[in-house]
Structures are given as C-alpha cells and as structure tokens.
C-alpha cells in the first residue's frame, strides 16, 4: 500500500467541492482511499491519526488544500496528480501569490461584492461554521440583512450577531437556517409555493417547508416565510429574530395571518412571545413541535400538529376546509413466519429534523412509544432495540457529507440495515422536495427500499413516506409520489399523516403475527 500527500497552497475550496474532489479521485483505478480537506489544524490532526505522514502535513494552512491518498501501487498515484489538475482547472488559486489577481471575475469578499452591487439587500452565507460569524458581521457592517445557512456557529456569536442586527433594524436569519421565502424568492431549501396571504416565521427549516407545502396543497399561498435559525427561541437568544420577523409580517400589507413554528422553545421565551403574538394585530397560529394542542389562548391558537396549524391558517384566510384524511389503511403484507409479536417494531428514518419530531409526537399520541438512539447508527451494525426515530440530518450524520435531503447515501444504508432486521415491520420515511434538495430522489429511494425488501426472504416490510413538496417543485411532486406508489410504498401528504398511518399499520401487523 502506498500513500501520497499533496498540498495545494492557496487553493481554498468549499466543502461541496472537496467532497466532489474526494469522490472523483477515489474513482481513479488503483486508488483505495482519497480525502480532500482544507489544512486546518483539526483536519491535519485527523489525517495524521489516519496514518498519513505528519511531516508532509505540517506546513499546510487553512487556505491550502490537502489531498491524502492511498493506493495499491505507487504507479496508481502517478495518474492522480493529473486527475487533480483536471478537477481544479479553471478555479483561481492565487491567495499565496498575493498579487496579480482581481479585476474581473467573482468578488472575493462579501464587502467587495456589496460595493460592486450596492442594490443587493440580502447576504446569504453558507461558508464553514468557523468563518460564518465573521462573514455575517461584515454583511451587518454594510447594513444588509443575512440569511445564515451555515451551522456550527457558537451561541455567543449568534447572540452577538442578532443583538447587532436588532440594534440596526436588520434580520439575521440563522445560523443553521435551512429555509426562507421572501416575496416568492426561496432561500436554502425551499419549495416553490404560490404567493398568498399567510406569513410564516419559523425556527425550523423543514417545519416551514411542511407548512408552506400543506398550505399549497390547500391552494393557499405564502406572503413570506422568515427562517430564524434553530436556536432563536432558546433562552440565550431570547427569540430576537422571531420577534423581528413577526414585526415585519405585522406591518406587511400582503400578510393577513401569521404562522409561527419552532422546536422546543424556552419557557421564558414562549411566555414573552405570547404577549407579542397576542398584540400582533393579525390572526396568529403557533405550532411548537412536540407540544400538545392548547387551543386559543388570548386569541393565539396553539395547534397540536403542523397539519392542524396549516388548517387553522387556511381557515383564517377563508379557504375551504379540507376533508379529514383517514389515517388507517389496510396492511397489504402478511406476517412473516416465526416472528413473535414482541419483535415487531417500527423504524423512522428522517431527513427533516422537525418532521422527525412531529412524527414522534403523533406516534406517542397513538400510544406508540419511540426512542431516539443516543448513538449514531451504522448501516453495518445491528439496530438498537425499540421503535426508533432517527434524524439523519443531525450533525452526527452530516460531518463531511451533504445533508440527506441532497445525498441519500447514509439513509439508504440505514434503510438496508432496517430491512435486514426481520423484527422491523414498518419503515417510516420523509421525502423533502423543492429547490436545494436532490433533483430526483424517488428512484434512488425506491431502489433502496427494493433492496431492503429483497434481503428479507419474502417477509414483508411496510413503508410509509411523507412527501413534502409543492405543485410547482422542480422534481415534479406528482411524479415522485407516483414512483413511490408504484413500488408499493404508502405515500402521505404530511409527516403527521404518515406517522398516523404507520401507527395504524403496526398493530395490524402485530395482530396478524400473534394469530
């Protein structure tokens, strides 16, 4: 086995690009392992621990790209250099030469981009977390609001950014803000929904997506959806941007009613926000994920699910109420031989964290206790016991790889692992469509499910998928749903309905097994 470490000085690449380089170099014949990383201290340590020579890593800086390779023979490594040159062709890399760049081409900093485009009114930031606060501050320096997609920003940095934004009357949407829709323009992961009278403020990206798609299915449009970042309603951040977003919607003439969605608000923040919501001057419905319905309090409706929240908003704006969707379906699969009822269980594998939370809540309401595994699951180890709910969009699963909404590799491995476990009878999944998401996810998901079922020796596996998509999404929501149905997968229009359906399926299976 031969190793090779290449250091390309002054060649900064974003994480998406690094993954692409790693993947393509690993595909070079004879190469057994290829890792492309920026030369940060952490990365250098990681590579040294992985057995790459320390001396060759020592000089690299965070601006230098390191490519570490293992191959069966030294000859295989010879072709890698050329392959790397080909991959990097056309990418400017003149940091170290420090001079004759600039003039034409892309701006190199946010400050310069804003100087060149004085009419720009929003800065979108998707740089590694380590650099995100710096960049967001530079946007605030220039008096611009920020959509901060990056995660791994410290809570102290978040508070400082939002406090500064508040003082200047600007918005900082994020960090870890997956979704926003401003005047029909989507940011991050967003569905192409019609414009209309409902305004959304959300500390949950998939929560916003699910709400906007549910309303879309009812023919109700969105004025704006303002993401605030998953920690905005924590005690430290104190709902600063939620409040700013609500203030914007309160005076926006297009917005006739307001939806607020968040995961686990701090009690003190929820209490404070309640006062703000009650005085907003527009009808308000709130969905705090994981919490039960509380009805109307001082005119503010606290809904028990996203579906209920969407329905309530639709009612506010006078849309025709949707007929209740039956939650129970007939199981198509018979029992497997030799199974005892105690071993029959459900596994939920989600891409959207809020959808996972919503599903858990609905399952609990149907009397089905679920566990969120404390340890990261692996496709190569047995699954832990119990009914499992897993958020594969969690940090533990996304280190060094794209979000499961974009890249289903990790989730597919877990689907296969669940298939191989004969006690798993019901698989609960979500599929999030829209801009930013995988361009055509259903075929891949279907082939995972087919493979999972094939490994069960004829024992059935019920699969329920909630599809979060709008009528105009680029993937074609109807087509995606059709592909799933044709593979014998149950399709539901929301995570709550899918969970209810799965919950109804499981006891049936249990009964059959018991018989």
């Amino acid at each position, binding site marked *: 086995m031969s190793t090779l470490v290449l250091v390309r000085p002054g060649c*900064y690449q*974003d994480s*998406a690009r690094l993954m692409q380089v790693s993947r393509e170099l690993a595909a070079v014949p004879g190469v057994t392992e290829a890792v492309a990383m*920026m030369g940060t201290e952490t990365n250098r340590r990681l590579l040294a621990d992985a057995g790459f020579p320390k001396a060759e890593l020592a000089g690299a*800086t*965070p*601006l230098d790209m390191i490519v570490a390779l293992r191959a069966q023979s030294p000859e295989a490594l010879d072709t890698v250099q050329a392959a790397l040159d080909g991959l990097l062709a056309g990418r400017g890399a003149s*940091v170290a030469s*420090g*001079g*004759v760049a*600039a*003039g034409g*081409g*892309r*701006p*190199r*900093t946010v400050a310069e*981009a804003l100087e060149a*485009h004085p*009419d720009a*009114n*929003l*800065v*979108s930031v*998707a*740089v*590694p977390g*380590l*650099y995100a606060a710096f*960049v967001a*501050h*530079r*946007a*605030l*320096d220039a008096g611009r*609001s920020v959509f901060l*997609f990056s995660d791994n920003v410290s809570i102290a940095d978040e508070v400082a950014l939002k406090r*500064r934004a*508040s003082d200047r*009357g600007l*918005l900082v949407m994020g960090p870890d803000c997956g979704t926003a829709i*401003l*005047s029909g323009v*989507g*940011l*991050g992961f*967003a569905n192409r929904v019609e414009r209309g009278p409902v305004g959304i403020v959300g500390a949950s990206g998939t929560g916003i997506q699910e709400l906007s798609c549910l309303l879309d299915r009812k023919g109700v449009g969105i*004025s704006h959806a303002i993401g605030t970042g998953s920690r905005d309603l924590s*005690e430290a*951040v104190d709902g*600063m941007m939620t409040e*700013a977003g609500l203030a914007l919607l309160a*005076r926006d003439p*297009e917005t006739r009613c307001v939806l607020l969605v968040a995961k686990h608000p701090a009690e003190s923040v929820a209490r404070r926000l309640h006062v703000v919501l009650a005085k907003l001057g527009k009808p308000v419905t709130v969905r705090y994920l994981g919490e039960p319905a509380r009805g109307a309090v001082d005119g503010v409706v606290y809904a028990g699910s996203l579906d209920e929240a969407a329905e309530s908003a639709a009612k506010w704006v006078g849309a025709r109420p949707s007929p209740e969707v039956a939650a129970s379906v007939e199981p198509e699969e018979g029992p497997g031989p030799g199974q005892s009822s105690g071993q029959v269980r459900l596994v939920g594998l989600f891409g959207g964290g809020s959808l996972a939370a919503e599903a858990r809540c609905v399952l609990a309401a149907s009397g089905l206790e679920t566990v969120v595994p404390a340890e990261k699951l692996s496709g190569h180890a047995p699954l832990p016991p119990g009914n499992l709910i897993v958020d594969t969009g969690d940090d533990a699963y996304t280190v060094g790889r794209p979000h499961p909404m*974009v890249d289903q590799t990790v989730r597919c491995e877990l689907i296969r692992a669940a298939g191989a476990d004969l006690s798993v009878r019901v698989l609960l999944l979500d599929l999030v469509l*829209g*801009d*930013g998401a995988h361009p055509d996810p259903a075929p891949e998901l279907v082939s995972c499910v087919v493979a999972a079922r094939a490994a069960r020796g004829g024992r059935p596996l019920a699969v329920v998928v909630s599809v979060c998509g709008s009528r105009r999404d*680029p993937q074609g929501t109807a087509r995606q749903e059709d592909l799933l149905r044709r593979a014998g997968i149950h399709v539901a229009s929301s995570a709550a309905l899918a969970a209810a359906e799965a919950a109804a399926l499981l006891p049936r299976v249990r009964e059959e097994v018991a018989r």
Partner: protein
Amino acid sequence: MSTSTVSTNTLNASTSVLLDGRLEVVHAGIDAVAEAPRSTGATVTLVDFEPPSGGDPRRMTLLSEVLSGPMAPEIDAANARALARLLASRPHLVGIGIARDVIPGMAEDLFLHAGPPVTWERMCGPMRGAVIGGLLHEGRAKSVEEATTLAASGAVRFDPCHHHDAVGPMAGLVTPSMPVFIVEDRGGERAGTRTFCTLNEGLGKVLRYGAFSEEVLARLEFMRDTLAPVLSAALALRGPIDLKHLMAQALQMGDEGHNRNRAGTSLLFRELAPAIVRATEDRERAARVLEFVNGNDHFYLNLSMPMGKCMLKAAEGESLSSLVTVMARNGTDFGIQVASMPGRWFTGPALQVRGLYFPGFTEADANPDIGDSAITETAGFGGFAMGAAPAIVQFVGGSAEDALAATRAMRRITLGANSGFAIPALGFAGTPTGIDLRLVEERNLLPQINTGIAHRDPGVGQVGAGLVNPPWEAFHAALEALAEHVRAAAPPPRA
C-alpha cells in the same frame, strides 16, 4: 439576557425592501445553496470565498473585532481623517543640507540605515558593505579591515532612517557629512513637516548596494563637493519644487516612482537646468552636474521617497487608525508601522525578490529584500501605480493588462485613491492609497512592492529587479497590536 427588541418602527429601510419583491442576493459559500434564490427570480452575485486572515481562528476573532466590533466605526473615522491628511499634504523640495546640520537627532557617531533596527551582527552583506564605505567616506577608517573592526566595536551607533524622518534606498546609509534633500509639507494640517533623503548615486557599483570601491568613494566626494552645492544654489534661486505636481506628471509619462523614474528625473532636470546654469559661475561645473542628473534614470527616486515619507507623516499619530505608515526593510528584517502606533515596528523576515537578473547573475546571488523605498508603495505609488508604467511590465508577468490588474488588486487593500495621481490607462483613476492593515488581513492580499535586487556580498552592487511582498508575520503582529490598542481605547463596558 437580551433586552433589545425590534419594534415595527425601528426596522431598517433595507429590511422592509426584503419584503417588497426586489430581492438581490450576495451569496458566499457552497454554490448549491444559491440555487434556490437564482431559480426563483432573485439576482444572485456569488462570492469566491476564502477564509479571512489565513483561516487562523484566533486572528480572525481579532480581525472581526477591529472590522465589525463596537469600536469599528471609530476606527473607520480615524482612518478617514488619516487618509484625508495624507492626501492633503503638499511635499515640496525646499533645499539641500548636510545630514549633521538638518536631520533631527543626527550625531557624529551615528549612521542611519534602511528598515527596522538592526545590529552589526545581524546586518546583511550589502548593508555591512555600505557601513564600511560610509566609514571610509567619513575618514573614520583608512582600510576595509579597519572599518570592519570599527563597525563591530560599537564606535558608531546605528539607527533606522525612519527614526529621524529620513528614508534611504537599499542600504539607505546616511553618514553625518552626506548631503540630503530637504522635503517640506506646504499644505494641510501638518504643514512644516520635514523629511530627508540622500542624493541618488546612479546604478552599478554604488554605496547603497554595499559597494565601497575607489570609484564609489570618489563619486560620493563629487556628490558632496560639487553636486550638492550646485543643486542647493540652483534651488535657492528657483524656489521650492512642488513634488506632488511633478509626480502626477511623471505617472502620466510611464513612471511609477519606484522602479521607473526616468520621466520624473527628466521633469526635474527641466525644472532645475536653467537655475543650475544661472547659479553656477563655472560652466564646466554646471555641465558636470547636469550630466550627472541626466545620466542617472533613478535620480528622482530619492525625491519620490521623501515625498512619500512626508505624505505618510501627515497620517501618523492618528489614534485608532489602521493605516500603514511605514514599510521598510534592512535586508534581514521587514518592518511596518501603523498610524495609531507611531514608532512601533512590527517585523518579519525580509523575503527573496522574484525578479529578472542582469546577465551573469542568478537568484543565488540575491540578497533578501532591502531598503526604505517601499515607502513609495506605502504612500500609494511604486508597485501600486504599476498600471501607469507599461514599460516595466516584465516584472509583473509581461503584459500591460497584468500591470493594470496589479494596480486594481491594490485597490482591494487601500482606504482610498489619490485623485492627484491619476492613471490614464485606468480611466484616470487615482492610485490606490492608504493601506488598511485590516483589509490586508481580511483579503489575504499583501501589498505589492517593486524593487531592485542587491548582490548578497558587499561591494558587488545591483544584480536585478523584480517584485516582493512583505512577510505575513509583520501584518499579523500589527493586527494583534492594533486589537490591543483599540481595546485600551474603548470605553469600559457597561456593568
């Protein structure tokens, strides 16, 4: 716990625009994330993001503090004041004097040199050569051996030119009996400020490159006994020369004021020739002076340098300012100074020049970067005005477009442009002026310096010319000090 909230009437105008359907987005980071706004109708400008300050987390925190922290608006205001004073200064050549008589703090046992402070032990070859030549020229030693022993003995003190409002090219040696140009600020708040520089010896074997042969010493004597008195008398007759005015013209004639000074020298010649003739009784003496000036394309360099120093002195001492006021090298170390911390050096190793060599010489012969002449870039010309000097573009890659790109690149790290120094090929844009230490760090872009290359051994002279950057260490150290300076100046936090 935060108490700040946003009420509807404090929202910024740009924020309400977000909801008015005119979304224009600047995006930094993973390109795919910009797909949503682009495909749903927003204008998107992509930033080619690079981690600031080399991606060092600790430095990035300091940098964020001075760019975006509570004191940042005051730093910006201080920089604006410093830059305004720099631009308002009007350096004039007012006369020629003898170093010991006119340079503040000059003494009989004091030799001035280029760059930050350096001891004899750490001096590079060419600077040692210049010191030896200086001792011979001053009559303090009769032989090279004697001069070497004397220099090592501590019998003469060494001090940077910059500590005495002077600048010197290459070794930059100033000894007590040397004649110096006197440049005086005739405009702005700091009128009356004086700066100094020796007279340029020409190319080839010269003291500033560490040569000390008979020929070198004879030229120094000629300069002291003939050139200086004749020019001095001519200047007295003609009156002060507005150097900025002259520089502005030279920039439009293909000079950049550091590595090309042919136009500046010619213009100076035109300004002085009639007065030289009138002020000198001995026609042969006048002719020799005119021939000397005419024969040395770099004669004007020793005026563009003290002019730059004079401009930067106007910016010095502005509390909180991050404007770089000095970049100087002694052949061993490269040092910079910042307006808010006058007199404090931030140093790193002097680097090798990337350049073109005279026939017979290679990189192996080159001494690391040396001289105070980087004051020209610091003041906003030299390498920063490369776009004005297409004749010497081989230093930046060979094409006139490269020269323009070099000047545009420097605009990325400067606070403003000097409209007095217009570059025709850039639509008469002013030269990038006032290096902001913060921008250098944020943009990972070092100032570009045009420079000559000295042979590493004493006595050989110039072997080439090219481009060089300051070492990052100097800027990193200055950033740390600036952050500390700003913290000390900040009002105490509210309890």
